[in-house]
């Protein structure tokens, strides 16, 4: 009994040997050391991220507009009348909270991603909730961001239960170090967050091919809802994903962050959002430790690889 309990734990030495990055070290040696607090608004405020991306030529979903004040909320239809579909997001949201996806609308009827139809009132109160800070970090007053709807590639539809699958790439000092695809499940309520029960599929930095997959910290081989073998996942245009992630490092001043990328049918990879505190579950999805990769990059002199292309080439050569 006790033995089996003990065998559920790995020894610290074994984790060290596997190069696993723990939460304390991530916070202390990477986030605190490489991410200066004053640059956090660049990733925590989606409008700021978007403007920076626009300036740097990083493709993102098209911006429709923003609603900042309660009295503007009732006018949201004026904002969205020319867009076939749209997404409402809290400007300071995190973890996919408070995101409402409207695929199409006609008059007063709005069709959500899951096919259900809602009316003006529901959208109005959703905007009200966003403005009151329901979804923002620390409950601060927020604004509602309107983006164009992403027409995400059909190739992933078998691999995801509702929701948009996205690709998280962890970037350290401009080098893409680890990647995974996050697939929504029934358990995660259509959201692509690992801790809510989404499936994470580790992707090889070299070629974007699936490595291992994880759900709620346990290895899985099939998507729990669609039943598709996760090893059959193919990400097109892999190198463009890496380029996008590496360019994000140039546009924001954070040394360690996660770039969330979605694949649009027409526009290809688009930057969804950036995260200054990317989770560690990606290591389980990849069956590989982050720490050894980060330490390899730390051992390089800062001027070793001046260009993003060189950094990507280095990462592809060293990180599977």
């Amino acid at each position, binding site marked *: 009994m006790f033995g089996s309990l003990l065998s*559920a*734990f*790995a*020894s*610290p030495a*074994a*984790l060290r*040997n*596997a190069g*696993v990055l*723990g*939460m*304390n*070290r991530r916070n*202390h*040696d990477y986030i605190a050391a490489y991410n200066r607090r004053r640059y956090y608004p660049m990733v925590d405020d989606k409008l700021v991220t978007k403007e920076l991306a626009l300036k740097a030529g990083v493709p993102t979903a098209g911006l429709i507009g923003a609603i900042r004040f309660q009295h503007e909320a009732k006018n949201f239809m004026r904002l969205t009348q020319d867009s076939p579909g749209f997404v409402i997001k809290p400007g300071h949201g995190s973890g996919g*909270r408070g995101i409402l996806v409207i695929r199409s609308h006609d008059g007063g009827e709005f069709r959500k991603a899951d096919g259900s139809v809602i009316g003006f009132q529901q959208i109005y*109160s959703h905007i*009200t*909730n966003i403005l*009151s*800070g*329901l979804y923002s970090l620390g*409950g601060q007053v927020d604004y509602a961001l309107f983006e164009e709807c992403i027409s995400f590639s059909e190739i992933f539809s078998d691999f995801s239960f509702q929701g948009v699958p996205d690709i998280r790439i962890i970037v350290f000092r401009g080098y893409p170090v680890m990647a995974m695809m996050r697939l929504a499940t029934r358990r995660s309520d259509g959201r692509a967050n690992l*801790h*809510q029960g989404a499936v994470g599929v580790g992707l090889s930095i070299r070629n974007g091919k699936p490595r291992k997959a*994880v759900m709620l*910290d*346990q*290895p899985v081989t099939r998507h729990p809802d669609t039943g598709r073998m996760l090893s059959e996942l193919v990400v097109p245009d892999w190198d463009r994903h890496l380029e996008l992630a590496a360019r994000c490092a140039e546009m924001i001043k954070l040394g360690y962050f996660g770039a969330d990328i979605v694949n649009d049918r027409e526009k290809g990879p688009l930057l969804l959002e950036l995260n200054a505190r990317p989770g*560690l579950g990606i*290591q*389980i999805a990849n*069956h*590989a*430790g982050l720490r050894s990769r980060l330490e390899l990059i730390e051992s390089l002199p800062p001027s070793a690889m001046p260009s993003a292309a060189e950094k990507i080439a280095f990462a592809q050569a060293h990180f599977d």
Partner: protein
Amino acid sequence: MMMSRPGKSICMIAGLLVLLAAAIAAFKICVLHYSFSRSVNAELWVMECRVRFMANGGPVAARLSLPYEIPGYYLVVTSQTPGYAFSVQEHGGRTLSVWEGAERSGPQSLSCQISFIPDGGAGTAAEEKPEAPERPRWPSGQKQFAEQLLRSVDPEGKLSIPQFVSALFKQIRKGDNPAVSVLFADKRQGTPFLQVVRNLLAMRKIASREAEGVFLTDKRRRQSPSFMLEVYYDGTYHRYDPVSGTLGTQKDFIPLRRGDEPLFALSGGRQAKLRFSALKTNISAAGLNRLRGSFIEHSWLMDIIGYELPISEQNVFKRLALLPLAVLLIVVVRNIIGLQSMGTFMPVLIALAFLETGLTAGLIAFLLILAVGLSARALLTHMNLLMVPRISAVVVIVILLMKAISVLSYAFGFTQGQSITFFPLIILAWTIERASMVWEEDGPGAMFRQLAVSLAACIPCYFILNNDYLQYLFFTFQEFNLVILALILLIGTYTGYRLTELKRFKPLVSSCSDHS
């Protein structure tokens, strides 16, 4: 899980903090005689001294002279004598208690309390070897009687000092020696008697001194001061009872005076009689620390330690004294074990409330408020309220709920229900808000898990905060908080794995887990 790569400066700061704490604690133990042990209830003797005399009709001044310190004890004098101005002065290592009154006549009574505070075993200083006594001057014609008496006590001059002293007392007590009647004619007791004895000893070059004191025992009520003869030999003074002439082993005898300065002096009155009654009381270690502390001249030291605050404020600090320890527990739970609670310090605050309500009653009330609050919050969700009004509504609901619990428990005869008001209202409201958010976003499972962790952290916090010994220790030795600060700083640099991560990342090191 080793402490790896901690910042050197942080290690140094932590080391300095620990050294500082150790230094302060050492000072308290060695100089102030504080004790780690709370269970030892020290004995504290309080002796009441009552003086009766007849006043002559003019101004009265009375002075009681006590040593500041006697081996094993400090002496503290307090007095409430109506009609007299009382003051305590220190002079030449002695405490002078002075009563002053104007225009008194008739019988008067003065009193004071002398507290004998154990000094925590500070050793007695070694007695200095006295100089050989001077050749005594006898009143005319007495010298030959003295020489005759000595001859009859020790004809051959071969007795050792103790033998000589006891033989001398034997002779004096027998009283059939005519020399004794001459020498002690009107000097049967007190100082005059002892002076003759000392003169006799001085003729043999034996050093001695007179001591006046009291017996520190419950058995003797209203005792008058007793005189003792202290004879120096074998490197120390030996105390003899002048009445019986026996070598005193009375450990309870406390000498209050040696030498010429009188124990009590009176002007403006006559026929003064001193009576002492001793009373033994027990005192807590903390009380003893306080009394000992009052002997330290730098009273700002005591101010810092917190003893000099009014009692009510002190109690606040007693509560606060253990908070750092509880906070350290939270740090360990989060950064070493790696469990997420609902709100970082919520468990500590709830544990503080449990102190007032008691653990069981507190837990029941907490879960009750949480359950009803969550249901109320679920109703509010459907109303689509703005955030601040929504939380405010929860606050109001929680207040009403507390009131209801109080009233109900009162009606059913449970008095604990009243203490429910000690729950931190705003924290409760936020806990409800957070719990309902977690429920909505991550499901009820995640909420119950976080709640369980919070309560699991809360209960040890409660036991820490409620521990009397820890409270004594951390209140008396507040510098231990510096050690806690050092530990927290060190944990702040701990970059090793958390306990939960050993389980979480297990799949990364067990490649064979797929087959098993």
